[in-house]
């Protein structure tokens, strides 16, 4: 970060906080949907700086956290098959399935590899042509276009040993499901910046139109988040419920059309199960029929039974904004970043990890 920006932050943050105090009409609960926002909010101490009665709650916006243990189990079971190399993002390595994790399996000799880009998985398949390379693809709309490009690249190269186990999810259907339950009171949304780079503003309009709630697509610097909260409060003060874009330097009204096209070419929506939220219609992505030959869930018989999420773990309620991490009896005791029980403690963007690391932002 350049020094000028730091100086601006030091000067402007107190001013924005003062404006926020002037507009605030507590009690108000704003939900930040995205895990990257959760970390940024904790890291910058914003929660403790806001006027009393303005509460920020974390939503289901960390792909690692919302993946049910059963899906991790399926990927692990695939990695145990002869001749299989399982490839995934580093975030997944420590996430516990119902009995083991990728990290433990790798330690026991499993061929499990971490990549930074889905294209790296294609490279591995090309190099290891004697093995079946399965990419366990987890992510939201930010990541899915890159995964779609990798699928097309594997096809272009004529690889017959590249497979995808898709565990991708879509954010707007999850927000609809969350709002439809009516179980948690939310007065506005700090909407995810990087998912919105891809999908734009349109897919969130239902939040304002059907549920009468304001939302602001927000960037990740502390000043961005403060401005996002300021914009939410201004909407409320003026009696508006709209979806606004604070993160204009990166988010276009229409999103990234090229990314949406490639995503639509390769994937189609499917009902998907979310940890804590259950089965949500059309909230996941599977390969289209044209690419079905690469679909690991079709190409392999997966020797795995569906098991429940770990007992006592409140990640499900935490992801819905119903509970806070310290409410969980396992938090900080049986469940720590070194020995996690639930995914919200494992992921660097999980609410439990943020609470553990930053002490609840106090």
């Amino acid at each position, binding site marked *: 970060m350049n020094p000028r920006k730091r100086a601006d932050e030091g000067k402007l943050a107190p001013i924005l906080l003062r404006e926020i105090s002037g507009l605030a009409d507590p009690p108000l609960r704003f939900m930040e949907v995205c895990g990257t926002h959760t970390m940024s909010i904790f890291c910058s101490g914003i929660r403790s700086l806001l006027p009393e009665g303005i509460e920020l709650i974390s939503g289901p916006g960390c792909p690692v956290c919302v993946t049910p243990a059963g899906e991790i189990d399926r990927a692990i079971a695939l990695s145990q098959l002869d001749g299989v190399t399982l490839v995934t993002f580093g975030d997944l390595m420590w996430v516990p399935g119902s009995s083991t994790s990728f990290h433990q399996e790798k330690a026991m000799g499993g061929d499990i590899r971490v990549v930074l880009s889905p294209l790296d998985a294609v490279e591995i398949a090309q190099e290891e042509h004697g093995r079946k390379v399965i990419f366990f693809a987890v992510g939201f709309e930010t990541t899915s276009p890159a995964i779609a490009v990798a699928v097309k690249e594997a096809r272009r190269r004529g690889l017959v040993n590249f497979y995808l186990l898709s565990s991708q999810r879509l954010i707007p259907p999850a927000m609809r499901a969350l709002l439809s339950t009516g179980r948690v009171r939310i007065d506005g949304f700090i909407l995810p910046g990087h998912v919105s*780079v891809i999908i734009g503003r349109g897919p969130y309009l239902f939040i304002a139109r059907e549920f009468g709630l304001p939302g602001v697509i927000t960037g990740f610097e502390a000043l961005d988040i403060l401005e996002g909260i300021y914009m939410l409060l201004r909407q409320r003060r003026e009696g508006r419920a709209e979806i606004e874009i604070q993160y204009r330097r*990166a988010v276009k009204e229409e999103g990234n059309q090229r990314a949406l096209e490639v995503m639509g070419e390769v994937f189609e929506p499917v009902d998907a199960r979310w940890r804590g939220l259950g089965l949500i219609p059309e909230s996941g992505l599977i390969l289209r029929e044209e690419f079905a030959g690469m679909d690991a869930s079709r190409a392999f018989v997966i020797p795995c039974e569906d098991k429940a999420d770990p007992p006592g773990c409140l990640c499900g309620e935490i992801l819905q904004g119903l509970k806070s991490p310290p409410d969980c009896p396992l938090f900080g005791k049986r469940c720590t970043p070194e020995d996690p029980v639930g995914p919200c403690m494992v992921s660097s963007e999980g609410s439990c990890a943020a609470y553990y690391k930053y002490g609840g932002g106090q």
Partner: protein
Amino acid sequence: MCLGIPGKIVSISEDHLAEVDFGGVRREVSLLLCPEVEVGGYVLVHVGFAIQRLEKGEALETLKLFKEIEESYLESTQEGG
């Protein structure tokens, strides 16, 4: 997981790949999802792909808004004595 990192494009090759500078660390990045970029411009990079060109104009607009907030604050404090 949805982390996006801004970087500056150093060079672009014919096969839609760019060398991008992230504050001193240089990495190869695919431009397939964001082809309309130029050397010297900034992009937001996620899992090895540029996903959006960062708009200088919009960044300046944000700074202008911050400036306005600052000015309105200074005015209000002067009025309030």
